[in-house]
Each structure stands twice: as C-alpha cells, then as structure tokens.
C-alpha cells in the first residue's frame, strides 16, 4: 500500500557543495552582508574617506555598545522573550561602577560591581517573568523605569567619573589602531555565536523559544534557562555600560536612553524572530553594523539628520518584510494568488 500523506522521503545523502552554497545564500546573514557591502560601495564612491581603515574602525566603535547588548537581545528573542530595560540597565551599571570607584574602591572591583548590577537586574527580571508568569514586555518595561530611577537616585542626576585605569576599555587602541572595544565586541560576538550554536545552553534557549512544551517534556530546565538568558543580557548590558562610560570617562545618568529600540532593531534586522526559536549572533552583529554604516554614511555625505531617522525606520520595516519573503510567508502576494483573490470577487 502506498503512502496516503507523504511521498517517500528522499534517501539521506550528504550535502553537496551546491547545497551548501544554496544554504549559505538563503541565510539572512548573507543577504545582510550583501546589503552592507553594497551600501559601503555606494558611500565610498561619494566620499573616499569611508573606506579608510580608521573610519571603518570608527564605524565599528560606534556600534559596539548597541552591538554588545544586541548579542544578549538575540538570545532573549530566541527564547521568545524581549528585554526593553537594557538602556536603563546600561546606565545603572555605569553609574554604579562610577560611584563604587568614587567611594574609593579598586577600579577593577568597581567595574565588576557595575557588571554584576546588570546581572542582578537580569536575574530579577527573569525571576518575575518565570515565577510571576508576567510577560517579559511588561516586566522589562517596569525595569526600564526602575533602573533609570535608581540610576538617578545613585547619582543625583550628576555624572560620575570613571576610573582612568579603565579608560583603555573605551578609548584604547592596540595592534596599530584597532580599538580595544571593537576587539571586545568581536570576541563577544564569536563567543555568543558559539554559545548559541555549540553549547547545551544555546540549544536549550532555542528549544524553549521554539516549543516550550516540547522543551519541558524533553527535560530541559525551562525556567532556569529563561532566567539565565535574562542574566546574560543583563551582564552584557552592564558590560556595555562600562564600555560606554569609559569612552568618555564619565558615567551619565541619562546614558543609553532609548537604546532598547536600537538594540531590538539590530537583532531583528540580523534575523532574530519575535516569535522565538530563530536568530543569529553574527546576524545581530551585522544588523548593528548596518545601522552604524547608515549613520556614518549620513555623516560622511553630510545628509540631513532627519533623513537618517526616517531611513532607519524604513530599513527596519524593509528588513522584516524581506525576512518574511525569504521565509516564504508572502506567497499570498504572488501574482497567481492575487489573481485568484481578485477573480473570486474580493
């Protein structure tokens, strides 16, 4: 008797080089890299400074803070959660480090204290999300306010000086001009990609975001993994706060305001799905770079800053539409489908 539902599956075969090439082509990352290269090419035609190595380092340096948090946000989005509090947590971590240092502590202790505060914020958020069963949107919306309020309480609204011993993090350059923060960023991206795709933790995150019930019955500690994901983004936001504040040597209470949207934009442009399960750290890196290149291009070409804001919005929407198309979710817009729709009288 033949199969009523499925045609006989193709025999298992190793993937040929062509398959691999096709798979690479279909990846979000490749498309994004293509867009960045194209954009860079156009900009460099108009302003030859664009391709100077120090400008490229510069572009990277401007995206480090958003990019580092986007690494964490990708994990959070893959776990089907969201973190809106990152901008405030960044500031809280930075001013904590600044004021711990100001109270006489060792600069390194101050730095660790700042990063730890970020982790604690993530822990609190994760705990409320998991134990209180409140959507992470709400919890982190609350944390956005709470952390900012704490930041201002800590500082009284005034900038805190950061230890000059740490200024190499934000300002230092090594190997003939590569900014230290860029190296930290790239290392984190590589570690993040490894963590996501090559460790038990990363696969657990994918599992809980993709199918919570299956993960649960598969024995994955769903709650703990979810909490750890928030701790991870908290720590990364804390680190981003340190980088941000050592760039200029002061931690400001209003640092990072509004960054949540930039961070989410970078992760989503990089292929992270708000419905969980899918995302790529390299993609988030490229997403952050795309935003950076766009901003840099506007500066280099001395275009109106208003156009910049407008086009970043467009890029976000277009990236999401492109992703839907790539996933085959826009077939209802194919000419055949539309023809049927209209012929049937609607």
């Amino acid at each position, binding site marked *: *008797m*033949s*199969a*009523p*539902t*499925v045609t006989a*599956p*193709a*025999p*298992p*075969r*190793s*993937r040929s080089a062509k398959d691999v090439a096709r798979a690479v082509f279909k990846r979000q990352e490749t498309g994004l890299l293509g867009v960045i290269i194209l954009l860079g090419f156009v900009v460099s035609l108009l302003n030859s400074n664009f391709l100077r190595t120090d400008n490229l380092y510069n572009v990277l340096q401007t995206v480090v803070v958003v990019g580092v948090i986007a690494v964490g946000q990708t994990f959070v989005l893959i776990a089907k959660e969201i973190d809106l509090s990152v901008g405030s947590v960044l500031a809280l971590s930075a001013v904590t480090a600044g004021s711990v240092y100001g109270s006489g502590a060792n600069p390194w202790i101050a730095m660790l204290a700042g990063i730890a505060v970020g982790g604690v914020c993530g822990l609190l958020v994760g705990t409320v999300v998991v134990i209180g069963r409140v959507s992470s949107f709400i919890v982190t919306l609350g944390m956005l306010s709470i952390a900012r309020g704490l930041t201002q309480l800590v500082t009284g609204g005034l900038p805190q000086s950061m230890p000059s011993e740490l200024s190499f993090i934000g300002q230092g350059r090594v190997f003939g001009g590569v900014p230290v923060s860029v190296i930290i960023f790239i290392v984190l991206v590589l570690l993040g990609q490894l963590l996501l*795709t*090559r*460790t*038990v*933790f*990363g*696969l*657990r995150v*994918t*599992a809980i*975001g*993709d*199918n919570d*019930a*299956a*993960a*649960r*019955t*598969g*024995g*994955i*500690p769903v709650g703990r*993994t979810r909490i*750890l994901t928030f701790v991870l983004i908290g720590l990364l936001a804390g680190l981003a706060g340190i980088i941000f504040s050592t760039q200029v040597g002061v931690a400001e209470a209003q640092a990072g305001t509004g960054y949540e949207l930039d961070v989410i934009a970078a992760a989503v442009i990089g292929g992270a799905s708000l419905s969980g*399960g*899918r995302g790529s750290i390299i993609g988030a890196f490229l997403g952050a770079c795309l935003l950076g290149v766009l901003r840099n291009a506007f500066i280099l070409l001395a275009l109106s800053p208003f156009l910049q804001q407008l086009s970043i919005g467009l890029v976000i929407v277009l990236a999401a539409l492109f992703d839907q198309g790539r996933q085959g979710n826009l077939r209802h817009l194919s000419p055949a*489908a539309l023809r*049927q*729709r209209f012929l*049937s*009288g*609607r």
Partner: protein
Amino acid sequence: MTTTEKPAALEVAGLAKSFGAVRAVRDVSLAFPAGQVTGLLGENGAGKSTLIRLCSGEMRPDRGRLTLAGQEVSFGSPLEAIAAGVVVVHQEPLLISELTIADNLFLYDLGERPAYAAARRGENVARARELLRDLGMTDYLPDPATLCRELSAASRQMVDIVRALSRQPKVLFLDEPNSSLTHEESERLFSVVRRLRADGVAVVLVSHRLAEVFSIVDHVIVLRDGTFVAAGDPTEIHEQRAVALMAGERKRAVVAETVAERRDAVAHARDAEVALELANLSGEGFADVSFALRRGEILGMSGLVGAGRTEIAEAVIGARRISGGRVLVGGRPARISGPGRAQKLGIAYVAEERRTEVFHAQTVGYNLTVRILSTLGPFGFVSARRTNAAARELTRRFGVKTASTEAPITSLSGGNQQKVLLARALAAKPRVLILDEPTRGVDVGTKAEIYATLRELAHTEGLAVWFISSELEEVVELADRVVVVRQGRLTLDAPNTAGPQPIVAAAMGSTEG
C-alpha cells in the same frame, strides 16, 4: 482485574487526576506486563493520554501510586521517568523545529548535561545515523542533519518514535504513534515493537486504528470516562467486545433507536433539493471531489486521518485555495472567497479542534453570539438586551449546561463547549452545516444529545449536515449517507445501510478497483 502470567513492569493503583470539573482519570488501578504489547483502548477523552502523562512524570496525579518493577516510584519530571526507563511517544510529536533531527533525537542530553557543556552536534549526527541504521529505519527519515522544520508530519512522528526507542525503555508508551503513518510505516514500527517485546519491554499502544492494534497486542485494557473497565487477552476481549466496552450502554440504546428511522430519512432525502454540490473540486491535498448534499440529509465523511477531509471542507468555505472544479450552492455556482462569504450563502462551519474554535477569554454568551453580531442591533451597534436574549435562547435550545450566559467559557465542560460551538454555528440559521470532528473529546452522553439535535434539525427543518469524523462508529450511527476520502479522492459515496465494512474497505483502499 484479570491477571496475566507475565510480571508487571509498571503498576498503577488508585490513580486519579482532575482538571477543574473534568475528572479525566478516576481511581484507576491496572498493570502493564513486561515483555508484552498492551493495547490501551478507550474513546476520545477516555483518559488514555492523561493516564500516560501521569505515568511518565509529565503530570502529578491527585492521588494514587506508581510501582515500577516492584518498587514504588514518583517522578518529578519526564527526565526522571526516562532515567527510570519510562518513555513516551506523544500524540502530538514534541519537536524543536529549529533544531536538526539529530539534536531532537538526543534532546534529553540537553536536560542531562550541564548548561556550559559543548553541544556535540556533529557527533550527534553521526550517532543518529548509527542509531537509525541499528533500528533499520534509515530509509524513513531524511539525513539527521536536516532541520525538523523541513519535515513532513509523518517524518516528525517518526523522529519522536526513534527518539523514544533510543532511550532503551523498560516501559514504552506509544500514544497514537501511527495516526499519521502509512500502513507500511506502521508495519515497520510494529516490527521494532516486536523486537522490543522480545527484549522484555512493556509496550503500551494507544490507537484508534483497532485493526492494526489487534494485529499486534498480547493484552488489552479498556478505559471509559476515566475509569478502568476491563483487561484481558485479545481472544477474550476481541475487537467487537472492545468496542462495546469502550462505548458503554447508553450509546447502544441510542443506536438501536435510530437504525429504523434512518431508512425513512434516506428515502425522504432522495428527492429533496440539493443544498450544496461539489463538482470535480481540486486543491492542495485533494483532487476531483464530487458529491451532492441534499436538504434534510446527514452526510458522514469518513477516511483515515490525513486523508484530506479537512482540506476539502476548508476549500468549500473559502479558507483554502481551489485549483479546479466548482462549488454550487442551492444549484447555482458560487464563488466563495472566504468564511464570511460562505456564511452569507447560508453555510456554517465548525472547525475540527475545539481548542482553536473557542474564544477562551470570553463569556459563554459572547461565544454563542459572535457569528451573529450584525443581526443584534441597528447600524453596527449590538444591543446588550438582544444579545442576552439570543444567548439564553441558544443555551436553552441546545441544552448547554452553564451557570449563566455571563460565565467564562472555560468554566464549561468539554462537551458543553462543543454544544456552544454547535449552537453558535446554528444561530445564524444556516441551510448547510459543515462539522469537522464534531464530537472529539465529547463524552458519551453528550454525544448522544448532539446526535439527536442534529437529526432533529435535519429531519424536521431540512438542514443539510455534512460532518467529518474519524470515528467509524459515529459515521455508521449518525450518517444517512457516507462518503469516504482516501488520499484526497472520493472512494465511496453510498447510503449508510451496509454497516462499517464497506467504509473501512474504502478508507484503507484494500478493495480498490
């Protein structure tokens, strides 16, 4: 209960579990013998899946004890159960779509190994290939490096099965493992089951495909309404007896009552006007389907799960694309662009899963009237008084047991929710009613009530009813006329006077040509 000579691998005593008002499992005591295949039988909602969840650590029983190989156990999580050798293949394959087959096969590793450990994905692929080779199932799955999101429903089910087999179970529960497998694939699965049996594993098989079940079981257990009914070997509890035990007595009485009536109905309907006609309808999942539905007629559509019945119904109401053929409503060709248009043409549809049809956060009244909102007031307003009156009238007419129409829908039992869905569809006074699995998860008594309501409406008001059902008995009992779908094509269209045999034959395709 009957004793078997084989020792029990897993015994349960006094097991009970309720979900709010629903007592899914009530005080069940039974044993699954080692080295045997036990058929766990019962109607939809009898509590089979719940019993399995209680045995495998997915749910905690309200009461009762579990004894595994003579030792009392209590599983805090599925992982603990698996470690003790109790493994489940679920009714719905529980897979992570974004991971590969290999990752899913070794999913339990993720729970067992520390979070910081390396994931060994490459190694897993090699292990998976080896595993499939050992089980002789290599041909039934694509390469283990494939993402599960790309798999067909059957392959997904297969992955779940292979995963269970890889855990070297002592007790293996198969909860409708073959519901989306072909006969050939089931056979392959059964050969693995036989091998496990030879190794002394207690295999528990849940399936509504009784013929397949009885081709392999050594021992049969029957549940009804969450209680233990009988156990014995298949010579003792043969297929007919099992069906009788599963159904209980009330239902028998209803069946007996209606067989006589049907002949009149069939004769009567023969000259009634055609309410809905499908002419060579084709689309994704079905092809060249033609049949006519007359006023006052109850048409039962049978077939194996996955035969494409849902697709046909959805195409008719405009929820799916049609690639060929026509739909005629009241004799006139109709272009049905969507369910809203279908409703205007007098066709009401109730989709197959209750879970996807109920508005969970709303009241009973809302659920009853949501399809007739525009008739409840002028200019797009909805009068509260008229809504209430309509909702009360519907609860009364369809015998929905509810405290008030303001009660949340979730406070109703499953059967009453099903009645609400039916009442909601009928509230718009349709001429044609399409029901997909109208009694899934409905208890025997309610089922009888629903059947009676449908007959009454058809035979006295001339409503044309087309229902899709996977339960053979339901089709035999309720339908005036039967159509059978196999692989997306109609293989039988006949009055329902010849009993179940021709239906089974047409569904399985054994007497084809």
